[in-house]
């Protein structure tokens, strides 16, 4: 299906397609026929469906299981074409009643399987498909209503996570745009009862966690509603409109005369599977809205925020992205050939959904860079219209930076700089001249500064100078040059200067690590009078002289610096044995590369990986007084989150090793049991077992030690946050100043970001965090963030955490 499109190699994008361009096996052919129906064709959709139904009917005697399997899969994996396939199944059912029954049974089995495997998003599509089969006269409406009743009864369960009952309610509500009319016509009293039960449930729900997930803290111009609340409003409006829904493409209407002759099946009674402790229900979310009908000035009107059409369009766009995200050309093409696109401002919907995903908290469904590349692809396909919508969107997002969540601003910065780098950095910067007349720490100039810095990383300094108007020169980043203190011109009077020259020459003459260590022994501790034998203790001057000189000599590129760190690893380890040593090495790296934050980030990464510094040292350094003036810069947080991720990966890696060793031991023990009573074998395997047990013990210790380090890292980070925030709050109180400065908002957002981005890991240490740090004595402002996080965790667990 999609390979055909990729024959264009002109921008070096697509690799050559596979040799096999025509499916030769039956299954591939059937797959291809079924998957392709509904695509652009010279014939009408109706005639294609009719034809395909005929072909499949003919193949049923020999290929029924394959056809069943393919149809079940497209129901689950191509939800954006739901009505096309439900019509197909309707036609097949009309021709072959037994097949219809078998399909329904297969779907129910698949539904059970997907729920068991925690594939809740896919399960929604399956239920929706079943509900549309009511419209195709395959399933009897009362049995569908009965299934919905079973789903809604989950809201009566006690001691279950809110996200569980949320999901069952969501499934029912999200089917109603498709089947509400038909169900209401047949079973209005039951549907009304269902809706009233749902309404009661929605009123009872806890929603303290919602602000944490919102992109903007302001409700104007568009409130970001909690997703179930929004859907409920949409269904209520649908009901008020007598269930008239005009957006969904319904091919089965054309076949009504055929389908209404078909016999229907009853859904077997479906009991929702009970709650399992390892169930992973979908995360709560908010609906991202940035456009309304006033924003698309010409052309079709954008459906309102509470119209069911809006829901269906957003659902379909989300489904298309979910299906095709790995293939951007196909994804863009599928998005732009959305059926019914002439009636909606499609570009606006697409841009809104894409940004909605990118800004989603805690994390977008796909990797950030996918969205950048997808938008570029869309611009390529619609050069006359999409870039303008994107520019309009960017402008709107810029205007609302004041209330945007800092994590989302991060994403916007990275997206915008990367996007610009693909379009020669062309932008109407003058339109943003308002950012020049305010304090640099305000969101708008801050944003522009960070964008220019990221843009510089993707290009070079002079380029940035060239692309912005002269008025913006104060926002241009500094030239990313090394700052060496021991130069002849400015550093010759510094205490470390002579030693710096000596070290430099030694390195040039390929001295060994030992030789250099001996040289460095001569460096006096700046605060020491006597010649105590404190050779091993922390000597900041020694670190400064050595590292400044070394990094200066290796400043040419990252690789040169890495090479230098590797070559003199021994010395660096010796110098950083103490915690102060680790802290100081980071300080020196900052001193020399403060105009090149990218270099700081890559060096810190390398030093953690080569164990010159540890993660806690990096955290302490970032929060230190020396770095306070950099605290609100993006690169600081990128370093911190990268550090936390490395720590997490390290723990996971050792845990995996432990699991593998345990598996090996189990297999070994099975082998022993099965090997009979061969004495030699037994002894040999006993040795192996002993070895494995020893290994497991060692790994167990390693895991505990790693987890302890991980817990400590989070403790350090949270402790530092609390200290900083408390200081600020106290200062404001004594000075009778409003606490809500931009710095404060930034800091609170950053604290929240730690919780959100690493919530799974932090969960394990909640007890310690609560006992040691987030106690009731804490300032309520700070405690509020922790409580919101707990509220978020609470919707996932059945039991209270206090």
């Amino acid at each position, binding site marked *: 299906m999609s390979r055909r499109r990729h024959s264009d190699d002109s921008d070096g994008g697509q690799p050559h397609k596979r040799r096999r361009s025509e499916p030769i096996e039956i299954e591939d052919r059937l797959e291809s026929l079924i998957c392709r129906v509904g695509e652009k064709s010279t014939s009408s959709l109706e005639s294609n469906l009719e034809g395909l139904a005929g072909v499949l009917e003919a193949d049923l005697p020999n290929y029924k299981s394959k056809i069943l399997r393919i149809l079940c899969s497209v129901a689950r994996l191509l939800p954006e074409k739901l009505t096309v396939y439900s019509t197909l199944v309707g036609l097949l059912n009309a021709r072959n009643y037994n097949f219809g029954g078998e399909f329904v049974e297969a779907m129910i089995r698949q539904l059970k399987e997907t729920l068991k495997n925690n594939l809740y998003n896919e399960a929604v599509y399956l239920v929706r498909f079943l509900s549309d089969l009511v419209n195709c006269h395959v399933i009897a409406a009362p049995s569908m209503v009965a299934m919905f009743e079973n789903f809604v009864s989950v809201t009566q369960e006690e001691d279950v996570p809110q996200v569980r009952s949320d999901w069952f309610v969501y499934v029912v509500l999200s089917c109603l745009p498709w089947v509400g009319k038909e169900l209401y016509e047949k079973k209005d009293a039951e549907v009304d009862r269902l809706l009233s039960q749902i309404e009661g449930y929605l009123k009872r729900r806890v929603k303290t966690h919602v602000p944490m997930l919102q992109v903007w803290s302001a409700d104007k111009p568009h409130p970001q509603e909690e997703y179930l609340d929004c859907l409920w409003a949409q269904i209520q409006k649908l009901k008020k409109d007598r269930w008239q829904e005009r957006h969904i493409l319904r091919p089965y209407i054309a076949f009504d005369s055929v389908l209404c002759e078909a016999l229907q099946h009853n859904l077997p009674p479906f009991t929702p599977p009970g709650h399992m402790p390892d169930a992973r229900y979908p995360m709560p979310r908010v609906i991202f809205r940035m456009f309304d009908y006033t924003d698309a000035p010409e052309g079709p009107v954008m459906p309102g925020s509470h119209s069911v059409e809006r829901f269906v369009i957003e659902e379909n766009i989300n489904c298309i992205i979910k299906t095709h995200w790995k293939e951007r050309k196909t994804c863009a093409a599928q998005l732009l050939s959305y059926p019914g696109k002439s009636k909606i401002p499609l570009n606006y919907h697409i841009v809104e959904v894409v940004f909605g995903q990118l800004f989603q908290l805690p994390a977008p469904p796909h990797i950030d860079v996918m969205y950048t*590349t997808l938008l570029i692809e869309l611009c390529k396909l619609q050069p006359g219209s999409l870039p303008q919508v994107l520019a309009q969107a960017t402008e709107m997002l810029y205007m609302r930076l004041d209330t945007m969540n800092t994590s989302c601003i991060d994403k916007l910065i990275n997206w915008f700089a990367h996007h610009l780098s693909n379009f020669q950095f062309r932008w109407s910067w003058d339109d943003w001249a308002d950012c020049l007349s305010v304090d640099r720490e305000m969101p708008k100039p801050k944003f522009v500064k960070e964008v220019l810095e990221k843009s510089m*990383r993707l290009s070079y300094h002079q380029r940035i100078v060239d692309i912005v108007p002269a008025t913006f020169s104060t926002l241009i980043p500094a030239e990313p040059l090394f700052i060496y203190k021991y130069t002849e011109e400015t550093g010759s009077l510094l205490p470390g200067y002579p030693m710096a020259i000596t070290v430099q020459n030694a390195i040039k003459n390929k001295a060994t690590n030992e030789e250099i260590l001996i040289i460095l022994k001569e460096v006096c501790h700046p605060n020491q009078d006597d010649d105590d034998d404190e050779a091993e203790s922390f000597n900041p001057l020694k670190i400064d002289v050595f590292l400044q000189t070394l990094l200066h000599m290796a400043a040419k590129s990252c690789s040169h610096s890495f090479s230098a760190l590797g070559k003199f690893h021994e010395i660096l380890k010796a110098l950083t044995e103490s915690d102060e040593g680790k802290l100081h090495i980071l300080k020196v790296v900052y001193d020399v590369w403060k105009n090149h934050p990218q270099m700081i980030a890559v060096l810190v990464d390398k030093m953690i990986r080569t164990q010159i510094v540890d993660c806690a040292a990096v955290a302490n350094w970032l929060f230190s007084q020396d770095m306070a003036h950099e605290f609100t810069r993006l690169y600081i947080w990128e370093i911190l989150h990268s550090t936390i991720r490395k720590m997490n990966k390290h723990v996971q890696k050792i845990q995996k090793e432990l699991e593998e060793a345990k598996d090996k031991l189990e297999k070994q023990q099975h082998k022993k049991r099965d090997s009979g009573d061969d004495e030699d074998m037994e002894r040999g395997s006993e040795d192996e077992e002993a070895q494995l047990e020893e290994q497991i013990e060692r790994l167990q210790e390693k895991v505990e030690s790693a987890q302890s380090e991980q817990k400590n890292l989070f403790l350090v980070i949270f402790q530092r946050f609390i200290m900083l925030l408390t200081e600020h709050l106290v200062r404001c109180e004594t000075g009778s100043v409003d606490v809500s400065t931009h710095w404060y908002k930034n800091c609170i957002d950053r604290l929240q970001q730690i919780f959100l981005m690493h919530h799974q890991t932090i969960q394990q240490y909640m007890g310690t965090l609560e006992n040691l740090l987030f106690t009731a004595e804490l300032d309520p402002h700070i405690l509020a963030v922790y409580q919101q996080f707990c509220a978020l965790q609470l919707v996932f667990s059945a039991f209270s955490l206090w």
Partner: protein
Amino acid sequence: MRRLAHSLPEIHKKKKKTALVSSGRLFGAHHGLSMDLSGASEKSKAMAAKLNALTSDSYIDISQYRDQHFKGNRYEQEKLLKQSNTLYVGNLSFYTTEEQVHELFGKCGDVKRIIIGLDKIKKTACGFCFVEYYNRNDAENAMRFVNGTRLDDRIIRTDWDAGFKEGRQYGRGKSGGQVRDEYRQDYDPARGGYGKLAQQQRPTEARNTF
């Protein structure tokens, strides 16, 4: 569509047994054509995996290019390409730095190392590099989302590489740079101007004209 219906039965005759047998093997010998899904999730994954059209991920396929200097046979090279974490990156400007490459490719994951391709004689950048990730998944994302986009205003191309070996950082063209820069006829200021052959020809042309 009707044509297909007629052409299918012929294949039916040849493949009929195979289809039945293979479906039997997949779903258990005694269940005939009904599906038994009440089992491991492997089965549901197998269901999805069977739909090649839906799980297409063509951006990460290996290309037709094979390194002629590779020590080993085609099969071995392809095996390495399919598990590689290393990408070849081509069509870079000679002025593109390691840091720029790191910034762009870092968007797909942590970069383990970057090796800038060098002119064998001049030892200066000659427009390509290798990017190695710590894991395959990150490299795949680079193939999906960085390949075919711009770096330093140029569309760059990424391809799987069997793994960096010392010596592979040098251009293999006669003049020291990449082979492609030997023979190209266009003028590319970011890649040393005219191709090497064209550079040699041009003075001759001038002489002939005047």
